[in-house]
């Protein structure tokens, strides 16, 4: 067991390291203005630990049971990994993906070989170890490349693609120090404070404050909220919004998120630095960052079903 651990541990570490390098690029790419990229890397990050867990499991299984189990599990891993890589590749853009591709290939080779030799138990183990060692070396190479991306400057040798890529990103980071940090945090929204008022009403306490943060007319947000929630409500004296019906903070947050997506962030560059103007019945979103201007959906409450007691309505109208 100890031996196994000794063999497997470094690879695990290496794996992590390898991923880190790819992540940096992802992050840098994300900083280019993709606000949504946040989702994918975390996805990948979430699936990676799992994968490692599975690897650990495999080690145990290796000792306890027959090889067959391993055989079954491995392809799973490959799929998981591929899925994770694809995820991050999609968002990371071309360059970010390239390196990861390499990583995927390493693992894939390993899996393929795994398959072909799965019948010979002892030999396979050795081969596996060798392969692991190989991949480790590869990973190490990559590390070195990443760390000394400008090593080739003084030497005769040709630069590699990765080196150039890293150099480009380093320069970008140097020239715009706020780029990585500034855009990634995108929108730090304060969460809506939602409090129940009795059994039938909900208070959205910091409604006006959030309107100010979003630079939107309270009426506009109010219209949207009420239309989406299919209810009625109004702003009271303490500038809090009282909504009819019971709503949780999470639900209000969901609606707010949709509002921000449609009416606050630029549809082209996703910058929140925008102005909403009304122009001949239509609302236009003018971006202060990229200058794009596009119309946004008008707020309509649409069909409203009768939810109050019909008898009460009849009594009122009659």
């Amino acid at each position, binding site marked *: 067991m100890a031996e196994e651990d000794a063999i497997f541990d470094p690879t695990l570490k290496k794996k992590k390291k390898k991923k880190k390098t790819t992540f940096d690029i992802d992050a840098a790419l994300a900083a280019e203005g993709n606000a949504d990229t946040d989702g994918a890397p975390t996805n990948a990050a979430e699936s990676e630990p799992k994968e490692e867990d599975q690897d650990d499991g495999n080690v145990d299984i290796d000792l306890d049971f027959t090889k067959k189990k391993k055989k079954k599990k491995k392809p799973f891993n490959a799929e998981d990994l591929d899925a994770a890589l694809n995820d991050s590749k999609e968002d990371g853009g071309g360059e970010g993906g390239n390196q990861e591709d390499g990583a995927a290939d390493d693992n894939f080779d390993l899996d393929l070989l795994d398959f072909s030799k799965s019948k010979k138990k002892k030999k396979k183990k050795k081969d596996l170890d060798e392969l692991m060692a190989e991949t480790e070396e590869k990973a190490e190479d990559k590390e070195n490349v990443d760390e000394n991306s400008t090593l080739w400057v003084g030497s005769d040798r040709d630069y590699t693609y990765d080196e150039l890529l890293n150099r480009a990103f380093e320069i970008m980071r140097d020239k715009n120090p706020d780029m990585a940090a500034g855009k990634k945090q995108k929108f730090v929204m304060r969460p809506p404070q939602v409090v129940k008022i009795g059994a039938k009403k909900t208070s959205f306490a910091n409604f006006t404050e959030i309107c100010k943060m979003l630079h939107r007319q309270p009426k506009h947000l109010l219209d949207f909220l009420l239309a*989406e929630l299919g209810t009625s409500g109004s702003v009271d004296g303490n500038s809090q919004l009282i909504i009819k019906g*019971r709503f*949780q903070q999470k639900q209000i947050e969901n*609606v707010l998120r949709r509002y921000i997506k449609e009416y606050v962030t630029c549809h082209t560059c996703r910058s929140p630095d925008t102005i909403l103007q009304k122009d001949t*019945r239509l609302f236009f979103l003018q971006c202060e960052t990229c200058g794009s201007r596009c119309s946004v959906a*008008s707020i309509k409450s649409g*069909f*409203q*079903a009768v*939810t109050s007691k019909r008898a009460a309505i009849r009594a009122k109208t009659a």
Partner: protein
Amino acid sequence: MSIQNLNTFDPFADASKGADDDVQDGLVHIRIQQRNGRKTLTTVQGLSSEYDLKKIVRACKKEFACNGTVIDHPEYGEVLQLQGDQRENICQWLTKAGLAKPDQLKVHGF
């Protein structure tokens, strides 16, 4: 005396009065409304009038095990109304039945 040909004709005159009829925007709006207590109601507005909504509601009621009805609204046309939060169900069902494409569905609510 006015000469007909010299009268200015505004081709957009009729467009300015009513662009807010929801039936024409091609979207199927799926909304949720709270009733008393924890009860909710799902409405589906904007399904093409070519479809027989009565048949649809019958199928939905059976499929989702809920009650439902069709309401003929003067402005929004025929609207499907189902008891409970059937937003997920109705989205899947409409796409599966080929009555609406996923990008036509607009889900509102929390």
